[in-house]
């Protein structure tokens, strides 16, 4: 049993052939977690959105400028829609990025496609957020029957 002590020293295990991951934020990991968390939140947000817009009250027939204007006058629906906008666009953009990673092999193609996805997502988020928070529900000089009920007449 003493042979173990006399055994020749074994070389340490070979070092990995690819460099170890750099320190810092692990985007792959957080991307993976984001997809799951945002997926669950979006299930609630999107079905809530569809229910309120299409089922409650007059349903789909109620949707007009006044209906949308009325919704955006309430901070609750502003937050709801902005959350939906950001979560859905980043979720979709990250999914598209994954598909590019999987199926585009040329580095230039990958860069162009990922750049296009990023620009599209960023532009839509910016525009959407701008609309939700700067929406004017009572534009001056519009006929009262097209406007939300709380608008001052005249």
């Amino acid at each position, binding site marked *: *049993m003493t042979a*173990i002590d006399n055994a020749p020293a074994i070389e340490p*295990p*070979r070092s*990995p*052939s*690819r460099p*170890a*991951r750099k320190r810092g934020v*692990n985007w*792959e*990991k957080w*991307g*993976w*977690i984001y997809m799951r968390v945002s997926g669950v939140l979006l299930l609630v947000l999107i079905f809530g959105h569809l229910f309120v817009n299409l089922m409650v009250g007059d349903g789909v027939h109620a949707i007009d400028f006044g209906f949308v204007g009325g919704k955006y006058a309430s901070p609750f629906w502003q937050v709801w829609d902005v959350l939906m906008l950001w979560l859905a666009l980043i979720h979709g953009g990250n999914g598209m990025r994954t598909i590019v*990673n*999987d*199926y585009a092999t040329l580095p230039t193609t990958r860069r162009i496609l990922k750049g296009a996805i990023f620009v599209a997502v960023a532009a839509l988020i910016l525009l959407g957020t701008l609309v939700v928070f700067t929406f004017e529900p009572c534009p001056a000089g519009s006929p009262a029957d097209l406007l939300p009920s709380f608008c001052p007449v005249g």
Partner: protein
Amino acid sequence: MTTATIAADRPGNADPSVIPFTVTFIIRRFDPDTDTEPRWQDFDVEMYATDRVLDALHKIKWEQDGSLTFRRSCAHGICGSDAMRINGRNRLACKTLIKDLDISKPIYVEAIKGLPLEKDLIVDMDPFFASFREVQPFLIPGSKPEPGKERVQSVAERARFDDTTKCILCAACTSSCPVFWTDGQYFGPAAIVNAHRFIFDSRDDASQVRLDILNDKEGVWRCRTTFNCTDACPRGIQVTQAIAEVKQALMRGHA
């Protein structure tokens, strides 16, 4: 010549299990010396219900076309040499019984996908074993056992990684993974299974090293949970579950 064959040759024997029937095999052939592209070739083989796909390949090689090339060693589902795509699914030829396949139609046999094709049913396994080696699939203990004693482990501790000890490195899972087909850098299910085997081993002290390796861009986060690997595994390992357990360990930060 087996006794079953002799019995079948005898007239008047009505046992259906020893009556041979003809099965058509369509095999994807590739000879690097003469072919530029793989081609499909069909063979009609006399088979018994108890035969396996590997027996058909043997019959073709020994009786019809000696140039048919494939790997096999133990022929009993242990060595993991004869993984191939049978009717579009990754299976071991030595564990796939003819009676379990629909023989009213031809049986398609081709090499596993995602690894470089060398000849007929043989692929270059080097990239597969390279990613296996990268996860350091050997015990790395932090301390010496008591002199003259083994490293003690409880039944529960052993059961924690029992499923992933069954891997025979046949590459059926890795070569069924759509991410591996398109992204050759991905570690692949087999490497992650073998990392799982040591990450959750209570005697091993380098699980953090392996978790760091699999936390890579081409590591476990590439997995899309398509379950192809679990379906392909001839040993019945819950491969996708093992990958998910590694993901959870990475989120916890420890095994």
